[in-house]
């Protein structure tokens, strides 16, 4: 003990010598030395006191102790530990207790933080209970070493590990579904049921349909599908396709063998009656004739189709319209002679009538236009219009004729009904040009929306309409209108009309003006100059008024004499003047034709609904604005979003006692999880670092027990349920 002390002394002296040996100690060295000494002296002051107590209690070597006692006071910095007073002891105990408790309650920090920042809190808090999962027989424990295996075998041999027996209750819990699952299942079953019902209904309706045509179409459809399938199959799997074909052939052969196709109930009956009844015989003969015809027709149509295909291939370059035309269809299929006649006649009469009606309508319209014209004299323009009408009529006749002719001769496109309509429109635009207050004006441009209404300007209508019609004509040309000669319609350009009308109109006005005034502009500009001056003055005045003024608080008579002729000194005035800050120029200051009254810019109602300062939790104006921007009502947002948005921050159950938080809530705390995550992160980082430095990663021991993992909690909740 003493030797140690002497060593300490030596050290001390050594260090002292060291410092003494150096001639001129640098400040850095000196500082280091001082620290060293300080450390040593502290060590010494602690060590002997402890040792004293130890030896004193055992009663060993008291003589040495006495010597030491004498020596000790000489050592620097040694203070003998006096027994602490009772208040002091208590104080230390209190301090320690407080520190411990403060440290201990820190464990609640995470959950408190979580609760304070939660979007939604619900009370009473969930009850957390810990449950221990017993050893389950299903899972073989992971055994790495031989020893482990042996141990396990021994234990299982001794039946120390008992398989967890599942009680009836547990089983029920395990097998029972959660509410979500039940809801999900119900939903699914509902969906299936509705689907089944829907399909069933559809099938029922289809089966109930008595229309033979419908069923035939169905059958055809089915056959086509099968054929296409077969074709595809032929491409992909020729072997299977062949099999299928063979099967089909077999079916056909079977059918042929039954002779069902040749038999007809109606024919058989007639055959029976034919022996006595002549009409029946005639009917039979008629039937066989028809049959023959049909067979011939079939052959013919096949030939024709082939021919048509060729022709269509030729036409395809010129013919763009792929519209399905019922007329063309009827023409394409040449029916049996008897049938053909009837249908053809019907069709002929129908189209004749249709065209006649159209013509009459056109005539009526033209006449109406004529009637509505109120101009007494027949001017140039009317003549042109009449000419135009005539030409249109001619065109129409031509077109209808060609329509008729076409039906007889060609099997290509027939004119659209739309064309007539378009021409009508064209005529209307015409008349619109005729007079601005014409009721026909309405149809010139279609005002479909409110925007159109706003943008609608009567001056613009005519040219727009004209250009539109021109475009339409051009389009029609593109869409193949072989009969109507587009170039001739182009001659009837509205521009001509427009110019004539507008010219006349303006000419008349200017004539009258000229009669009254020689030079109307001179006076006008004089007045303008005056007004401009006045306006500029007003503008400047307003700008001045908007600028904040300097305020002078100087009072005459304070600090100097005052009287009727005595002026205040400029110094005093300057001293007591509060200078107003210069206002930034308004956004309209560079516009010379505007007087901008800033105060009148916002309506008072709006001002009332503006906040004067940024509300508390927000740090930026944009945040605050964003917080009130989006709507939350179910009128404006979808129902589910609405519900999400209006979720209350605090949910309490009615009539439930809310108990204070207890220790089990700590299990729910995510901090443990977070800590594990962090740990992993740091581990990964460490790994990387180690890999860089070339070290081997150390296998981690038991780091942290993860409380309340999702699986465990689920289990525990279930078991609670």
């Amino acid at each position, binding site marked *: 003990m003493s030797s140690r002390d002497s060593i300490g002394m030596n050290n001390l002296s050594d260090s002292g010598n060291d410092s003494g040996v150096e001639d001129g100690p640098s400040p850095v060295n000196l500082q280091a030395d001082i620290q060293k000494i300080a450390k040593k002296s502290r060590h010494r002051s602690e060590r002997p006191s402890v040792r004293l107590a130890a030896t004193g209690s055992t009663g060993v070597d008291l003589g040495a102790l006495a010597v030491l006692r004498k020596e000790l006071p000489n050592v620097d910095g040694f203070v003998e530990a006096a027994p602490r007073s009772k208040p002091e002891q208590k104080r230390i*105990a209190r301090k320690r207790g407080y520190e411990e*408790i403060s440290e201990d309650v820190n464990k609640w920090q995470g959950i*408190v933080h979580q609760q304070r920042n939660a979007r939604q809190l619900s*009370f009473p808090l969930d009850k957390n209970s810990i449950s221990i999962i017993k050893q389950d027989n299903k899972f073989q424990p992971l055994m790495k070493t031989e020893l482990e295996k042996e141990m396990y075998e021994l234990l299982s041999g001794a039946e120390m590990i008992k398989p967890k027996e599942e009680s009836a209750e547990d089983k029920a819990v395990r097998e029972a579904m959660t509410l979500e699952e039940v809801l999900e299942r119900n939903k699914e079953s509902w969906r299936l049921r509705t689907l089944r019902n829907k399909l069933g209904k559809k099938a029922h309706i289809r089966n109930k349909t008595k229309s033979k045509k419908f069923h035939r179409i169905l059958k055809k459809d089915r056959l086509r599908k099968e054929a296409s399938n077969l074709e595809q199959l032929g491409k992909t799997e020729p072997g299977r396709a062949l099999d299928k074909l063979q099967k089909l052939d077999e079916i056909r052969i079977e059918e042929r063998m039954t002779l069902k196709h040749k038999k007809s109930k109606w024919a058989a009956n007639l055959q029976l009656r034919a022996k006595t009844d002549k009409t029946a015989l005639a009917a039979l003969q008629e039937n066989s004739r028809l049959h023959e015809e049909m067979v011939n027709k079939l052959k013919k149509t096949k030939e024709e189709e082939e021919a048509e295909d060729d022709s269509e291939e030729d036409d395809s370059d010129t013919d763009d319209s792929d519209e399905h035309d019922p007329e063309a269809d009827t023409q394409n299929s040449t029916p049996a002679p008897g049938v053909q006649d009837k249908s053809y006649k019907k069709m002929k009469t129908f189209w004749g009538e249709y065209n006649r009606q159209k013509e009459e309508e056109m005539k009526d319209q033209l006449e109406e236009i004529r009637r509505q014209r109120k101009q007494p004299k027949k001017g140039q323009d009317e003549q042109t219009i009449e000419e135009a009408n005539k030409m249109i009529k001619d065109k129409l006749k031509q077109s209808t004729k060609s329509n008729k002719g076409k039906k007889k001769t060609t099997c290509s496109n027939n004119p659209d009904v739309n064309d007539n309509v378009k021409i009508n429109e064209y005529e209307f635009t015409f008349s619109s040009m005729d007079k601005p207050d014409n009721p026909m004006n309405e149809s010139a441009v279609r005002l479909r929306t409110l925007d159109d209404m706003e943008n609608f300007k009567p001056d613009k209508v005519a040219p727009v309409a004209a250009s539109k019609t021109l475009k339409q004509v051009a389009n029609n040309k593109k869409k193949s209108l072989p009969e109507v000669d587009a170039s001739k319609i182009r001659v009837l350009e509205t521009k001509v009309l427009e110019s004539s009308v507008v010219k006349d109109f303006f000419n008349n006005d200017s004539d009258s003006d000229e009669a009254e005034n020689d030079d109307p502009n001179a006076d006008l500009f004089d007045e303008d100059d005056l007004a401009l001056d006045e306006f500029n003055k007003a503008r400047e005045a307003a700008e001045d008024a908007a600028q904040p003024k300097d305020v002078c608080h100087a009072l005459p008579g304070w600090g100097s004499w005052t009287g009727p002729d005595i002026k205040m000194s400029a110094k005093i005035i300057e001293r007591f003047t509060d200078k107003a800050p210069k206002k930034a120029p308004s956004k309209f200051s560079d516009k010379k034709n505007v007087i901008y009254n800033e105060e009148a810019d916002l309506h008072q109602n709006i001002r009332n609904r503006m906040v004067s300062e940024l509300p508390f939790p927000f740090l930026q104006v944009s945040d605050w604005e964003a917080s009130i921007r989006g709507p939350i009502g179910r009128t404006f947002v979808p129902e589910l979003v*609405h519900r999400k948005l209006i979720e209350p921050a605090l949910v*309490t159950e009615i009539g*439930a*006692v809310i*108990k204070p938080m207890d220790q089990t809530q700590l299990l729910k705390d995510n901090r443990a999880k977070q800590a594990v995550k962090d740990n992993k992160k740091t581990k990964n980082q460490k790994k990387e670092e180690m890999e860089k430095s070339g070290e081997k990663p150390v296998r981690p021991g038991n780091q942290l027990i993860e409380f309340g993992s999702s699986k465990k909690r689920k289990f525990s909740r279930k078991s609670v349920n």
Partner: protein
Amino acid sequence: DYVRECGQVQKVQHNPDPKLHPFERAREYTRALNATKLDKVFAKPFIGALSGHIDSIWKLANVPTRLSTLISGSCDGELRVWDIPQRRVTWKAQAHRGFVRGVVVERSGKNVITCGDDQTIKVWSLDQSTIMEDDDEQDESKENVKPLHEFLGKAGFLDIDCQWDSDLLVTSGMQVDLWDMNRSEPLHSFSWGADTINTVKFNRVETNVLSSTASDRNIVLYDIRSKTPIRKLVMKMCTNSLCWNPMEAFNFTIACEDCNLYTFDMRKLQQAMNVHKDHVRAAMSVDYSPTGREFVSGSYDQTVRIFRVSEGHSREVYHTKRMQRVFCVKFSADSKFVFSGSDDTNVRVWKSQSSARLGTLLPRQKQQLRYRKQLKKKYVHMPEIRRIERHRHVPKSIYKATELRHIMSSAAERKESRRRKHSKPGSRKFKVERKSHIVQEDE
């Protein structure tokens, strides 16, 4: 043809295209305004008064297992157990001579424990067989109700509290005594300094910690495991009541004689977490809502106020003409009601949300109310809505007193700022409001 399950409500298709619903902000603003106004219209927080005591009510206690029972102790030593839905007394007893200083219900909810000036602690069974019919009978029955046990102390007791998770009791008076229910002598006595200890309260989460407030303006924390007091905090003025936050283990709030309430973190006592101002006379009592988000306080200025923990000013003030100085307040265990006991011998029942609707609500009603609440929250900063939302009527005396206090505080502030201006820069330090009411923290 689709009909909702719950009733004859037809399904309505709704197109949320914003073009079809113009002026959304303007419309929602109007709705928010209407919601705020409706809230005011429906704000009728007073449910009823339970009258019967013949002296001021000093202490209230509720039962940890029941919602419908409230217990009150009055200054003449009478104990009453109330059935709140029925608004009548279940039973009553002359518990003590002098004040009933403390009432608490044991955690099982079976026994009521009271203490008083007469140096006794008495344990009563909560379910007494005597049922009151009329007043004459009551007086007789008062004699019949007897305590289960009775402990005699050395001096009068001033408060009592029960640990949440065991049967330990703690009383205050000359010193803080820790009792076991099965022993007639205290297990341990804590003392630190010598003055009357007015209140004592167990932490409801960290149940081994308790705190007391004494007449010499200090608040002391104790640890019952190490059986020592651990820290003392000296305030500028005396603390009348203390309550621990039931959801945040380390936070507690005190009701102070200087009209304010202070929320503290027990780990950082050198500074209050929050100063809650609004009362104009001494705050007498404080109690936390079981949700831990707000607390109620009763004051000598005859008002009951509800504060949010995080806010410096009250969100609600309750008063009636007849309510006198409030000595004790209590939140109900479901956080929906507030009870106050006052000098006028009545216990009053209030809603904690002044415009809340009682009883069960239909889902649609619920949704509507939620929507309104959210709207109000969204537009609460708008001046018009803010004005309506914030308006409260208070008696003239309180209004004037508030005004006066404002004048005084602003004058003091002005004076301080002037002093600062005229002294050497940096020599006068700014005082933090949260620290300014604390004298010192003793170890």
